[in-house]
């Protein structure tokens, strides 16, 4: 499912500004700069990855997800992924995050919605995995800068039997 446009209020950023932000986010993830990445979230933010094929309105309070991090666990996830004892990502896999089809789907300066499509490649020990789907964001402006309040990454594959796990930030 894709989200459709809702009414807009006054918004001081345009799609191009949001794209710059999302491309910067992707570059941080490609470079494993996760501490800088998590700084793009406002305190109290959350980060979800529902099970493959889940509906856009799936709720981690009532459905099983792969990832449903509140802000505390999101920061812990980042700490974990940067340790060499996070075995699945040591040495770090090589990743490339592709982001497209960016749309602002309503709101205003206090809170606005953004969707994008993604294709993320992960390569390690001669195997390459593809994660594809769409992101939904709730964003806000803090002192003029875009910050993430909520991010959900929906995988559009039927399952993740081939990829096996969601060990990177997709």
């Amino acid at each position, binding site marked *: 499912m894709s989200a459709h446009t809702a009414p807009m209020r006054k918004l001081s950023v345009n799609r191009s500004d949001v794209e710059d932000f999302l491309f910067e986010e992707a570059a941080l993830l490609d470079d494993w700069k996760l501490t800088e990445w998590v700084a793009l979230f406002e305190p109290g933010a959350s980060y979800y*990855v*529902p*099970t*493959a*094929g*889940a509906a856009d309105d*799936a709720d*981690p*309070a*009532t*459905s*099983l*997800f*792969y*990832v*449903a991090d*509140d802000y*505390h*666990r999101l920061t*812990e*996830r980042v*700490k*974990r992924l940067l*340790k060499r*004892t*996070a*075995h*699945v*990502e040591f040495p770090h896999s090589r990743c490339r995050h592709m982001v497209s089809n960016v749309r602002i789907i309503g709101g205003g300066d206090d809170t606005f919605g953004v969707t994008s499509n993604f294709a993320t490649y992960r390569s390690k*020990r001669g*195997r390459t995995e593809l994660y594809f789907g769409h992101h939904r964001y709730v964003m806000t402006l803090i002192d003029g800068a875009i910050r993430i309040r909520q991010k959900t990454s929906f995988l559009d594959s*039927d*399952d*993740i*039997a*081939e*990829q*096996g*796990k*969601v*060990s990177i930030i997709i």
Partner: protein
Amino acid sequence: MGLQTPFDSATPVLVDDRAGQGIFRVARRAFVAPDVLACEQREIFGKCWLYLGHESEVASPGDFLTRRVAGRSLIFARNKDGEIRAFFNTCPHRGAMVCREKQGSANMFRCFYHSWAFDLDGKLITRPGNDSYSENANAHGEHNLVRTPRLEEYRGLYFINFDRDAPDLASYLGNTREFIDLVMDQSPDSMEVVGGTQEYGFKANWKLLAENSMDGYHGQPTHATYFDYVMSTNGGLGDTVVKISKPHDLGGGHAVVEYGAPWGRPIAKSVPAWGKEGEDETAALRASLTQRFGEERANRIAYTNRNMVIFPNFVINDIMAITLRTFEPIGPGQMRVNAWALAPKGENPKSRQRRLYNYLEFLGPGGFATPDDCEALALCQEGYANAAEAGWNDISKGLNQERPSIEDEVQMRAFWREWSRRIEGTEP
């Protein structure tokens, strides 16, 4: 019985069980050889009871889901009278898969190819051009969906068996029932599968996940970052309450480990991160358990963790949350996994939320632990590229110990002895 193709002379046996001498080894060939997998498909997946699904997943008449079990595509459905059925998902006419949805509710199944339709008991109800068929053509139900040879249930868990002559499910489950009961008794009403299936996979032989699912020895080294997280979240590792650490060989290849652990248990052990609210709620749950079962059993249910493998491929882990898990080979070096969260029906929303939050901190493909198991098992499988020269796994830890702990390998040896009996024809 057993392998029809003999092994090369270097590995005349696959399970080298010399317990008296302190030796227990498994040949790495058992994880890589296509002829071993073919034998497993026939002797294990073709004859053992295999978990299909939970009653709550098809809660109302007409509910159905499709599920892969041992390579077959099955339909799991509840008929109009509320009875549960399992069919092979293939049209009796030309074989096309009849049902293409993962789940839903229906009053019939229709194969789109020639539009044959079947009721929820699998019985043919309509087809175009019915007059062109002779009466004999369906005299013995040849035009109905084929049911699985056996379908039986224990406490809401439905299992199928492809062997018509298999012993009944209750006998097969044997001693595991005591531990299934400790899970199912957590609700005064019944348990349910929470919405959503985690369908993922490992690039490893399926038997490695049977071992891993009840391996207490790998916890600290493999899951160090998980324990870091528990400490950081709760300001310390916290109290395990119970000091038990006990592996059980339950017979028939089934095994379980029982132990205390520092994590919170939604039924009914709180941790500091849950605050006063969590403390109060778990205390109430414990009081209710005590009222129903007495203090000793209530404490066992509440505080003791259990990881159980029901031979060959069904896991019930009652740990920081309850997970049901099946896994099956799609080649010697690859498996598919299905995992579900099990919870008391009617659980209050806050407890349910905490349970699911807890589940994801450790379990599943995005948890803080399972992805590292993915990596460990994949590395084992990649290491078996050397099986011709470096040929053996060691499973001897704790052999002949008077009081083995869950960090020993009693539970894996239980699995392997049954595996060897079925594959190599060895006497138990």
